[in-house]
């Protein structure tokens, strides 16, 4: 292997500093004891006052956090059902055109592309479109509209991860289950779903993060009682950055890092299992067959 030049290390260091220095600033100032009403970028001493402020019933973020969690919860739940079923239907569609006709086959192919489109559409367009749609058909802005909108952009994340997993599964497993007496529904419950569970879970984590994080789309369709966390943060920094936003950001960073680490651990566990699934070699006789 080629030895890395010192420039490469320097380059890496530069990128890391640029990426993480602002983040570190936020973390640092979340512990600042300077009592100014807006964030005073002069570090005076260590204090947890801003973390206490987070839970202040008036200026705190408790209500917004609850709103965001409820929103993300429902959105992920609906998206998981829709995305998983969609992926199963798409991957396990009849292999041959004969059964659904040439047009049906083409329609499914196009549907597969359309299903992931929300990821590519600029958020501002999606938000605007959803706002127009909800006004047109008379869905009041607020939680139902928010959930519908979030489902719209969360489904593709779950759809894609589950579809990838299913495509790599041996279809012979489902056939074997049928052959052993399982009805199609039982095959789904005992073979397909358990085997795609890791993918469903990681898709859900991704969708959850997207929902918690979304600002643009929520901005268009939220109601007076449904200020989500990102919306609340935005409204509170309009007149200068209040110091407890730093505390909030630090908490959120902590949660995100934990989730990412968790995801990596799950992935690593899966890899290890896959290793074990490899052939154990030529010691086929350890079971003690005929002498």
């Amino acid at each position: 292997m080629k030895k890395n030049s010192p420039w490469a290390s320097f380059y890496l260091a530069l990128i890391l500093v640029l990426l993480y220095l602002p983040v570190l600033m936020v973390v640092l100032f979340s512990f600042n004891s300077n009592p100014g009403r807006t964030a005073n970028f002069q570090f005076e001493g260590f204090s947890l006052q801003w973390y206490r402020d987070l839970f202040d019933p008036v200026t705190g973020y408790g209500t917004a956090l609850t709103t965001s969690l409820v929103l993300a919860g429902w959105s992920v739940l609906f998206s998981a059902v829709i995305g998983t079923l969609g992926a199963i239907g798409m991957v396990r569609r009849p292999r041959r055109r004969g059964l659904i006709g040439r047009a049906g086959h083409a329609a499914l192919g196009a549907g597969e592309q359309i299903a992931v489109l929300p990821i590519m559409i600029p958020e501002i367009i999606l938000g605007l479109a959803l706002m127009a749609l909800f006004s047109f058909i008379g869905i009041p802005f607020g939680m139902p509209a928010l959930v519908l909108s979030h489902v719209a952009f969360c489904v593709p994340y779950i759809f894609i991860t589950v579809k990838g997993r299913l495509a790599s599964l041996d279809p012979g497993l489902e056939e074997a289950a049928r052959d052993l007496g399982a009805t199609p529904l039982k095959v789904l419950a005992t073979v397909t779903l358990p085997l795609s569970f890791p993918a469903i879970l990681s898709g859900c984590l991704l969708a959850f993060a997207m929902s918690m994080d979304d600002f643009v789309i929520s901005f268009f369709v939220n109601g007076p009682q449904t200020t989500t966390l990102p919306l609340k943060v935005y409204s509170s920094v309009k007149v200068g950055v209040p110091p407890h936003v730093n505390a909030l950001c630090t908490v959120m960073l902590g949660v995100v890092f934990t989730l990412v680490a968790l995801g990596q651990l799950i992935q690593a566990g899966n890899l290890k299992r896959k290793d074990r699934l490899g052939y154990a070699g030529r010691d086929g006789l350890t079971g003690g067959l005929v002498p």
Partner: protein
Amino acid sequence: MSDRPVLLSLRGLRKTFDTQEAVSGLDLEVFAGEFLTLLGPSGCGKTTTLRIIAGLEMPSAGSVLLDGQDITALAPEKRAVNTVFQNYALFPHMNVAKNIAYGLRMRGAGKEEIARKTAEMLELVQLTGYGKRMPGQLSGGQRQRVAIARSLILSPRILLLDEPLGALDLQLRRQMQVELKRMQQKLGITFIYITHDQEEALLMSDRVALMRGGRFVQVGTPLELYEHPQTAFAASFIGETNLIAGRAAAVKEGEVLLDIAGFSLPCESFDWITPGEELLLCVRAQRMHLSTEPVNAPCRLKGELVENHYAGGERTSLVRLPDGQTVRVRHSTENDAGLAPGSEVFCWWNMPSGVLVRDDREEGQ
């Protein structure tokens, strides 16, 4: 075999994928308790046939009858037929015991019955104590036996096996062949077995159905297939075979005089042979004999020894006939001194060892 009752009938079975015909008109009766092998080159339609019997594939035409009842449209989970898949298809998220018990659980069997029968099956395939292992922790041979146990726990009327030994190394393969045959005889379950290994087919089967291009070429006992091939394809697919081209010069009662490279050879006749017809004479390489002296045998050809390949106890010699055709002879290396390339030799065989067939090798590929 035919004294046993018919268990499964295939009638006019056809299967077309898009425009490709995988199975083109199969008729077959499978008898209760027999070990039937579908033998043929890859792509001959044997797996499709098996999948139709299992219910995993719907035939384009024709029907499947089990015990006289039409099961053509019956869902796979409702058929008293189970399959051992080529790659075993063990459920990777269940341990060995759960894999084996799967069929019983789907049937809604009680806990006690599941535990008892699973233990029985583990014992049958000699994997007692392996119940808690995951499939990923097993060797190929062990997985194979779990797959068999998983299919047998439901006591199917027919067990379908799709090249079950294909992934095993040669030594293990030989052992499993004996083991499977023994198991089949002990349980009395009808086996329909797929292989492309002709030796395996001859060794294990009660009957072999030789397939090519979606059709049966010949169905019969291993002895019938080896000793009395009906076509050149059947003759060439099984065993090491010489197919020598000649012309039926004269047809007498029960005998044909075949003209090969100027030699006139008596052969057993069939009623389909017409005088003057071009035919192939099938003689197994092991049934050919070689000598440097003119042997007093009616079936005798003279030629030049062009090559011989030593392989320990046996030698394969190639003899070129005056018309350019080559004949392979497999003979013992005992007393074969003097058989050097370039020498003039006689190859001869006993008349029953030669079978006349028509050339069908180019058809149906």
